[in-house]
């Protein structure tokens, strides 16, 4: 019995991270002679054995191309792939599998919307509104499409805690605002944005809203209908699944109104040299052979987190976040960057007189993996006047022992740079 199934049989129990850890083979590794402490789940989470087994079972037993042959393997592969799509649909409570487009990841999902939704219909005078907390993946595709169409990019500001200033966001909305693109959770700081409220405000002005949910889906239950999101994007590899696969949710009538963005096999119904007709949703947006095993792995990852319980994961991570914030704040010279009232399990910090890169090297030497740098959010770093931060992020397998090791290693950094 895995920790996930054990957890399910005792619903409402707090997460037993020690038994969860046993589901993740990589956590048994040593780095530089010390047991690995993995605190970089916000960059990419590790995979439980059940995900690897599901992928292996598919590859060794059922692999063929999807939506093609009449042979048994092709049918099994198609069932596995489309089964994963329905698993995703239930996970985020979408109405229909027509609304679930498989993509490479959040970045590709956002680029799809930029090129297939914005590019054909926006022009001079139209505005796209983002927030100052965005990851480069939710900035650059909009800059590119603004250059292509002549529309304008606007940025809603944040306060010194790293929170969106709702009134200033609302003040930037106008009839010119045609799309709002916002993170659900900031990758650099951990801030949870009030997306439901922001979506409602945007809709009042007739704008569509895309939510970058890459950092949200591993930490809380997301219901795209309750949020009333028009588009919602996330990646498998931050949700304990494989890399190279992600999801674009789009409201069916909006996806229906969009032209395809890549041409090729699988996205067509008929092809002649004169013209082609396109496939139905969601395949219209899935040109070429998809990442079938990736989708299977993502489906298994969703099974895993659902069995643990997203509420149990969230409660566990929030407890660690509180402990980490208190312990790191107590270290002389450490300053936490991003102190929003509502945060996911991310602690970004700086240390007086020590560059984050040096913190990262010393922690790695102690077997501790954290992210150091600008976290693909250079404007956030500029806002706080730092070139970079050190960032520890937690997942379902993180423990208070991990935290103790982190704190001891940060103290050690202080010693080296005394």
């Amino acid at each position, binding site marked *: 019995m895995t920790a996930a199934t054990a957890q399910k049989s005792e619903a409402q129990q707090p997460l037993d991270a020690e038994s969860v850890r046993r589901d993740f083979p990589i956590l048994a590794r040593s780095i530089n002679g010390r047991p690995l402490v993995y605190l970089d789940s916000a960059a990419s989470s590790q995979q439980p054995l059940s995900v690897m087994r599901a992928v292996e079972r598919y590859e060794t037993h059922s692999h063929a191309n999807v939506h093609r042959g009449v042979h048994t393997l092709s049918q099994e592969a198609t069932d596995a792939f489309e089964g994963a799509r329905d698993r995703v649909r239930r996970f985020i409570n979408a109405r229909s599998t027509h609304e679930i487009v498989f993509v490479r990841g959040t970045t590709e999902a956002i680029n799809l919307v930029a090129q297939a939704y914005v590019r054909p219909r926006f022009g001079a005078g139209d505005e796209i509104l983002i927030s100052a907390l965005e990851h480069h993946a939710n900035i650059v595709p909009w800059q590119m499409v603004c250059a292509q169409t002549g529309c304008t990019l606007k940025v809603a500001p944040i306060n010194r805690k790293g929170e969106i200033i709702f009134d200033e966001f609302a003040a930037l909305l106008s009839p010119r605002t045609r799309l709002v693109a916002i993170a659900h959770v900031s990758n650099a700081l951990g801030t949870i944005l009030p997306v439901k409220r922001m979506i409602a405000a945007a809709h009042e002005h007739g704008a569509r809203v895309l939510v970058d949910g890459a950092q949200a889906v591993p930490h809380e239950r997301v219901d795209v209908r309750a949020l009333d999101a028009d588009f919602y994007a996330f990646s498998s590899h931050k949700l304990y699944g494989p890399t190279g696969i992600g999801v674009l949710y789009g409201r069916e009538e909006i996806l229906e109104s969009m032209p395809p963005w890549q041409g090729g096999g699988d996205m067509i119904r008929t092809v002649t040299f004169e013209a082609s007709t396109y496939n139905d949703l969601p395949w219209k947006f899935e040109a070429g052979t998809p990442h079938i095993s990736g989708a299977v792995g993502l489906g298994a990852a969703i099974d895993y987190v659902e069995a643990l319980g997203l509420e149990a994961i969230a409660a566990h991570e929030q407890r660690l976040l509180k402990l980490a914030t208190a312990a790191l704040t107590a270290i002389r010279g450490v300053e936490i960057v991003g102190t929003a009232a509502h945060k996911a399990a991310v602690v970004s910090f700086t240390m007086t007189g020590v*560059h*984050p*890169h*040096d913190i990262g090297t*010393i922690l790695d030497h102690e077997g501790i993996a954290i992210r*150091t740098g600008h976290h693909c959010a250079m404007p956030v*770093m500029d806002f706080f006047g730092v*070139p970079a931060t050190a960032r520890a992020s937690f997942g379902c397998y993180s423990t208070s022992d991990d935290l103790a090791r982190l704190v001891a290693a940060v103290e050690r950094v202080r010693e080296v740079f005394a």
Partner: protein
Amino acid sequence: MDLKDLYRDVILDHNRKPRNFGRLDPADAQAEGHNPLCGDRLSVFVRLNGDRIEDLRFEGKGCAISTASASLMTEAVKGKTRAAVDAIFHRVHDLLTREDAPAAEDLGKLAALSGVREFPVRVKCASLCWHTLNAALEKRASVSTE
């Protein structure tokens, strides 16, 4: 692999008290270097006397390795000709990247950078200042040939 090999006393000292830190105004040449991996930026300012680096300074925000390397570089190249600077750069490059780099005693304090080799992701931190100095000197060269 020992942390003390990377963070030697010379490195920590030059990180804490970088030499030749600040702007040089006027300068004959300057360039800005950027390491997008860590967000480090540094500027190098050079004053030339013929082919010789009469004075140079650097400023910027960087990690201990990049700051100390830049500080050590300014001490090592001040007063040197372009050819001598090139020779030192090649020696330092070998020191940072090659297991079989020749003994570095004659490089003076720059030898303290040999520990960086064991931390491959940090090699760029140590070489940023040298690439930036080269860019500054090349710009000067291209200006003078016009």
